[in-house]
């Protein structure tokens, strides 16, 4: 047993942190989130240049990683600096291409993703679904040689700047059945794809998609017809491991900011950090941070080595419960300990609050995963 990162992983994580420290400080980020697209081309180009975008793929697919453990330090750094560029959406969608795609599909997309020219997003969630992975109301029918898609998708993270979507649609079965879910590659500029972008609480951008009789070629189908559910579950479990690591970085940032604040803010002639009522709360925040970090190690390590999908999903759900609870604890307490200043946009901690609040919901909230964890434990 060892907790050391291998040298390459450590070097990459360090270079990402250095880049973000130099180029993604609070003031720079402010400009990015105020821009209409909420996206910075230079950041993305730097991600490609440092090799970050290749980290999501194994060597066989032209990348140089593909493991959760290999990516977790990067996700921590993105969490620490509250990066809004859609790294995780691109990773989740393009890994599905690597996993399910034909040789042509992979060649058409993965080198472009690694090079930073193609951004992707996973358009799966729908309004009535809440977090149920099996819920797919969108339909796909055969049409000539190809397909015709009708339906709607909601809160697609990364959708505002995505070049290519993976859209889930049902080719058979009931709306909540695990069989009959198919995945399709859809160009963002496809005629008949209505895309509505909006800001999310954490200053990222999401889109809603609507499509009615959207025509696709035969080569749009990704993987086997009707067999998308297992791959979606795997992608979500991987995404949870990444979110856990991102939350871990954001939590550390909130805690560092809060500790610094209570050491310097003076009331009644002394730093407020000298009051035991605040000290003990700060310690509880620190314990939460370390327990979350442990959960991050556990889930990333198990995601990489699990052979049984049920066990993999069980650990992922456990990690998401821990992540959601930790996000809530730290976001609420860090603002409270900052007092009124914690409420303002002027301090980073309020932005960390916003991201942590979204992470706790993203890919399933604690209640959803408690239910899933119990089902998978029995």
């Amino acid at each position, binding site marked *: 047993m060892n907790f050391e990162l291998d040298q390459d992983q450590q070097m990459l994580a360090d270079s990402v942190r250095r880049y973000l420290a130099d180029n993604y400080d609070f003031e720079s980020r402010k400009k990015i989130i105020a821009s209409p697209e909420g996206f910075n081309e230079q950041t993305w180009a730097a991600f490609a240049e440092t090799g970050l975008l290749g980290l999501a793929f194994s060597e066989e697919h032209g990348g140089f990683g593909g493991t959760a453990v290999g990516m977790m330090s990067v996700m921590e750094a993105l969490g620490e600096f509250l990066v809004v560029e859609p790294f995780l959406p691109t990773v989740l969608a393009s890994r599905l291409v690597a996993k399910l795609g034909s040789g042509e599909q992979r060649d058409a997309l993965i080198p472009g993703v690694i090079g930073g020219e193609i951004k992707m997003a996973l358009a799966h969630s729908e309004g009535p679904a809440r977090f149920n992975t099996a819920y797919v109301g969108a339909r796909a029918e055969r049409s000539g040689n190809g397909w015709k898609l009708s339906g709607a998708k909601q809160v697609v993270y990364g959708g505002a700047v995505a070049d290519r979507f993976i859209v889930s649609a049902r080719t058979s079965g009931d709306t909540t059945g695990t069989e009959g879910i198919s995945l399709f590659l859809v160009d963002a500029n496809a005629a008949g794809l209505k895309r509505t972008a909006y800001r999310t609480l954490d200053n990222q951008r999401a889109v809603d998609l609507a499509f009615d009789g959207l025509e696709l070629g035969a080569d749009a189908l990704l993987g086997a017809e009707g067999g998308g559910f297992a791959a979606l579950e795997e992608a979500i479990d991987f995404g949870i491991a990444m979110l856990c690591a991102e939350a871990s970085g954001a939590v550390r940032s909130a805690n560092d900011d809060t500790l610094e604040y209570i050491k310097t803010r003076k009331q009644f002639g002394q730093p407020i950090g000298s009051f035991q009522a605040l000290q003990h709360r700060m310690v509880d925040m620190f314990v939460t941070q370390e327990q979350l970090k442990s959960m991050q190690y556990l889930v990333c390590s198990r995601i990489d*080595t699990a052979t049984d999908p049920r066990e993999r999903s069980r650990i992922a759900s456990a990690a998401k419960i821990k992540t959601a609870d930790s996000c809530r604890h730290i976001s609420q307490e860090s603002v409270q300990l900052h007092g009124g200043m914690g409420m303002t946009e002027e301090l980073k901690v309020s932005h960390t609050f916003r991201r942590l609040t979204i992470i706790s919901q993203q890919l399933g909230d604690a209640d959803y995963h408690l239910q899933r964890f119990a089902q998978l434990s029995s």
Partner: protein
Amino acid sequence: MDLNYTPEELAFRDEVRAWLRENLPAELRAKVDSYQELSRDELLRWQKILAAKGWAAPAWPEEWGGPGWNATQRYIFEEECGFAGAPPLLPFGLSMCAPVLMKFGTPEQKQRFLPRILNAEDFWCQGYSEPGSGSDLASLKTRAVRDGDHYVVNGQKIWTTLAQHADWIFCLVRTDPNTPIRQEGISFLLIDMKTPGITVRPLILMDGGHEVNEVFFDDVRVPVENLVHEEGKGWTVAKFLLGHERLNTGRVGISKRELAHLKEMAAERPDNQGGTMMEDVRFRDRMSRLEIELMALEITNLRFLDQMRGGRPPGAEVSMLKIRGTEIQQGLTELMMQAAGNQAAAFKITQDDGAAQIDPLTSRLAARYANFRKTSIYAGSNEIQRNIIAKATLGL
């Protein structure tokens, strides 16, 4: 990063597990498993079995009879013992007095006491807390006055665990009441419990159990050769002890066993809807959250071990093992009591109670819940642990 044990570590775990299966007496295991009190002889019997194997003192150096294990092996051993339902090894001799003697004792003291501690010939207890000195230990008042070749000790200790069984007590006493810094007037004394002038009075806890005592000292004469380290340097000894062997305070192995136990109960006991407690969503979710916290705590514990092994011993942050570990232990006892529903009202049914319908184990659950409130109070209350982290780790 690899969170799996190495093949060597797995082989070690299997060896320990197999040995425990063969050598842990069924009747001891059954008692531990059903939450019954263990007698003095039962506690010592288990330690003697381990001593014969050479495993009674995992943390001791080989020269004094330790097995020569590294930190990971010690952790695995501890965890396997906990999981198997082995009786606890009492820390007072093995992991408190002994390390102090190894560090500060004279050659004569080591020769005299260490082998007897190892082989469970002496039963030790700890004389630290006093009625007026709990968390603020340095305010202790028990006096020791030099009189020729003896110290004469007067005063009172409290919360003395299992003093009713003890042959010896190690005590912090005040040898100089007039030092400007109160920590400087304290000394560390070993006292034979059979010495005239010692009275042990039981303090019965709210679960009806006799675990702790008050110990009174009335002109108790202690030979000066029983002083450990120098006179007035007792605080140094106490601090050394506080920093020693803190990596087992999470009690992960025991909590894993109790979690398995809780799940068995939840699968059997009725809920209010004709199903089992396992199907009661509110109950199940609380149980899941405890399980997840325990998963994380195990990794946290292993991370500290890893730092230790890498030559970077963790600091005050290990106090979090005690905080979270005890919260988990308490949570488990609370959920067990809850799983029993209205039957949990019964208090320690025995055979004398005749045809009671409630089984004895169920009738111990509420008592155990009450008893476990102690865990967040003893060994440095969880508030003191938070003070330690706040000061030493966070710099507050």
